[in-house]
C-alpha cells in the first residue's frame, strides 16, 4: 500500500472514529516533551509510523533521537512527570490508546503489544525466579492453575531455546548469562502472544555471536506468529539483516521512511546518507571515513527550519526558514528534506 505516511491519514473518518483502519499499530504526529528544571526539552516532535502484522519496521537513529521515548509512549510507560504527551495519537486496531481508559490500555499491554529492552537484567525482577515471572502472567492474565502456568512457562523457555528449560525454570535472573537473560525476557514478553512486539535495542549489550543467535530467534518467532515487530536500533548492520521497512529518526522526527533496499541503495535524506557513509567499510582501510560534521541539536533549543540544517552539507537558505514536512516521494517512501526529489532522482 502506498498511503502509509504523512498526514493524509488524519482525513475525516480514518482517525478517532473507532473504526479499525486495517492498520495494526499506528503512531501519528506524536509529540512529547520533558519539563525539567533546566527547561522544556521537545523530545518527540511529530512522529508518524506504523507497523502491520508480519512485518518488521526498524526505527533507526542516534542516541537521544527519541526512539525509546516513542516506544515508552506507545506502551504507556512514559515517565510522567517530567514527560508529557502534547499531541498526536497512538492507534491500535484504529483505536487511540492515548484517550482510552486505563483498564482498556492495560488489556492491550502484553496481549496486544509487548516490549523487550536492551537491558534484560533491569527488566527482570531479581528476587523472583525466571520461571515464576513467566508463569505469573499465565496465572493472572489467563487464569491458569499454578501447575498449568508452570507447564506453559517451561514451554515458553523451551521456545526461546533455553537449554534444559525445566531445570532452568527455578533459576534467578543473575544465574543466567547475558544472552540467556535476553531469551528469558523474550519468553516473558511473548507469553501472552502479543500482536506487536517492540524490541528496543535488544542486542546492543551483547557480543556479535550472541547477537546473531538472538536476532535469529526473534526473526523466527516473528515469522511463526506473524507478529508486527518494531525493532529499535542504531546499528545499520542489524537493520540491513532483518528489517522490511525503516524509519529514520532525527531530533524527535521521522526524517525518512523507505523499504530496506531503497534506503541503502539510494537514501533520500542527507542525514541518512551521512549515517550510511560513516560506517567503517571493511574494504576501505586507511581512507578517511566520511562523517557528519557537528552534533545533534540540543532538544531544548532546536534550530528553526530543518533541524538538520547546521550539519547538512546540502543546506540552502530555505532550510533555515522552513521546516520540511515528511512527504511521500514515489510510491512507498517518504523524506523530510526540501530537496528529497533531487536526491532520489540523482544517478
Amino acid at each position, binding site marked *: 500500500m502506498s498511503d502509509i505516511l504523512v498526514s493524509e491519514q488524519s482525513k475525516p473518518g480514518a482517525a478517532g472514529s473507532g473504526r479499525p483502519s486495517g492498520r495494526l499499530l499506528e503512531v501519528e504526529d506524536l509529540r512529547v516533551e520533558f519539563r525539567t528544571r533546566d527547561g522544556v526539552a521537545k523530545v518527540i516532535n511529530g512522529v508518524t509510523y506504523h507497523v502491520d502484522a508480519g512485518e518488521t519496521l526498524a526505527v533507526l537513529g542516534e542516541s537521544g533521537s527519541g526512539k525509546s521515548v516513542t516506544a515508552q509512549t506507545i506502551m504507556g510507560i512514559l515517565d510522567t512527570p517530567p514527560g508529557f504527551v502534547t499531541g498526536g495519537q497512538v492507534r491500535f486496531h484504529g483505536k487511540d490508546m492515548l484517550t482510552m481508559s486505563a483498564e482498556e490500555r492495560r488489556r492491550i499491554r502484553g496481549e496486544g503489544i509487548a516490549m523487550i529492552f536492551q537491558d534484560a537484567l533491569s527488566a527482570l525482577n531479581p528476587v523472583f525466579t525466571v520461571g515464576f515471572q513467566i508463569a505469573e502472567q499465565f496465572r493472572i492474565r489467563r487464569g491458569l492453575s499454578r501447575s498449568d502456568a508452570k507447564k506453559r512457562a517451561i514451554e515458553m523457555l523451551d521456545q526461546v531455546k533455553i537449554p534444559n528449560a525445566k531445570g532452568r525454570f527455578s533459576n534467578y535472573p543473575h544465574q543466567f548469562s*547475558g544472552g540467556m537473560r535476553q531469551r528469558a525476557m523474550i519468553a516473558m514478553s511473548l507469553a501472552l502472544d502479543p500482536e506487536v512486539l517492540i524490541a528496543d535495542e535488544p542486542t546492543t549489550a551483547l557480543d556479535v555471536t550472541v*547477537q546473531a543467535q538472538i536476532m535469529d530467534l526473534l526473526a523466527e518467532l516473528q515469522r511463526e506468529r506473524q507478529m508486527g515487530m518494531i525493532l529499535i536500533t542504531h546499528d545499520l548492520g542489524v537493520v540491513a539483516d532483518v528489517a522490511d521497512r525503516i524509519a529514520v529518526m532525527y531530533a524527535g522526527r521521522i526524517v525518512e521512511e523507505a523499504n530496506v533496499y531503497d534506503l541503502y541503495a539510494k537514501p533520500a535524506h542527507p542525514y541518512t546518507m551521512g549515517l550510511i557513509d560513516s560506517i567503517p567499510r*571493511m574494504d576501505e582501510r586507511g581512507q578517511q571515513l566520511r562523517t557528519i560534521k557537528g552534533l545533534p541539536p540540543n532538544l531544548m533549543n532546536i534550530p528553526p527550519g530543518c533541524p538538520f540544517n547546521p550539519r547538512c552539507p546540502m543546506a540552502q537558505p530555505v532550510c533555515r526558514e522552513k521546516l520540511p514536512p515528511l512527504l511521500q516521494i514515489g510510491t512507498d517512501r517518504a523524506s523530510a528534506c526540501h530537496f528529497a526529489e533531487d536526491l532520489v532522482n540523482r544517478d
Partner: protein
Amino acid sequence: MTENILEVRDLVKHYPVTRGVVFKKTIGHVKAVDGVSLELKAGETLGVVGESGCGKSTLARVLMNLERPTAGSVNYKGQDISKLSGGALRRLRRQIQLVMQDPYTSLNPRMTVGDLIGEPFEIHPEVAPKGSRRDKVKELLDLVGLNPEHINRYPHQFSGGQRQRIGIARALALRPEIIICDEPVSALDVSIQAQVMNLLEKLQAELGLSYVFIAHDLSVVRHLSDRVAVMYLGKIVEIGTEDEIYERPTHPYTQALLSAVPVPDPTLRDQKAIIRLTGDVPSPVSPPSGCRFRTRCWKAQDVCAEQVPLLEIRSGSDHPSACHFAEKREIVASHEV
C-alpha cells in the same frame, strides 16, 4: 621490517577468587590473561578483538603496568616494564598512554578541561615548564579538533565524542610513542565514531604513534589496524595482518566471529553463510581443557580436549593460528561489495 617497539612474552594475569570475609580463602583464579605473546612495531596499529570478558582490558592494564602481571614480560625497547618501579617506571610510563572506553566516567567531573589535559604535566614537569602549560594545553585542544577557548569548561559541557577527544588530548600531553586505546569509540554513535576514528588516524600520521587498538567491533578494528590479534578466554587464538585475519582466517572462532558481523547491505541478506555458535563463553575461572574454544567448536575432536593447540603457523596457512585443524574458509560476510 620496522623494529618492535613493544614485545610481550607469555603474559599472564590471574585474579584470585576468594570466599569468606574475615579469613579470606582463595578458591580459584580468574584467568583473565593466560599466556599472551605479541609484538607491536613502531608506527603500526595492532588491533585486538574478542568478546566481552576475554581479557582485552586486563591486557591493556598490564601493558601499561597499571597492574603487575602474574607472569611474563612486557619489553619496551629492551626494558621489561613489568619489573620497573619508582622513577624508572615513571619515566617509561610517559611513553605509553591509555585512552579508555567511557568518556563519561573516565574524566573527573570537577576538573576543567585545562586541568584535565594539563594534569600529566604535574607528574612530568620536565615535559612542560609551568609557565608554558596553558599554551601547551591549548595546542593539544586544537590538535584534537576542540576549541582552545573552551579550556575552562567542565566535562559535562561536552558531548560524548568531544569528551573522547579530551581523553585523547590528555593521552597525547606527554608526547608518548605508544597509545593503548581500550574501546575508544564503542560508546559513540556511528557519525561521531567516524569523527574520532579519523582523528586517531590523523594523529598517527602526524606524530608517528603506535597504537594497540582494542575493540569488539570488527569493522572498526579492520578500518584502523595493520595487524590484528583475536582473543578468546585469555588467549590469542589467531594473529596476522589485517588481510590474513579478515580474508583468510583459519581459526574456527575467528571464522564464526567474522561471519556473525551484520553487514550493512540488505542485498547480501540471504547470501551470507553465517556460522552459528551455540552456547556462551565458558567461565575464565575454569576454562575447558585443551583448546578453550572446544565447547563451542563445530570441528572439535578428541585431541582438542587433550592438547592445547599452540599459536603457530601450520601447513597450508600463512599466519599463526591456535587450532589443531586450522584451515582457510571463505567468509562471505567479511567482504564488502
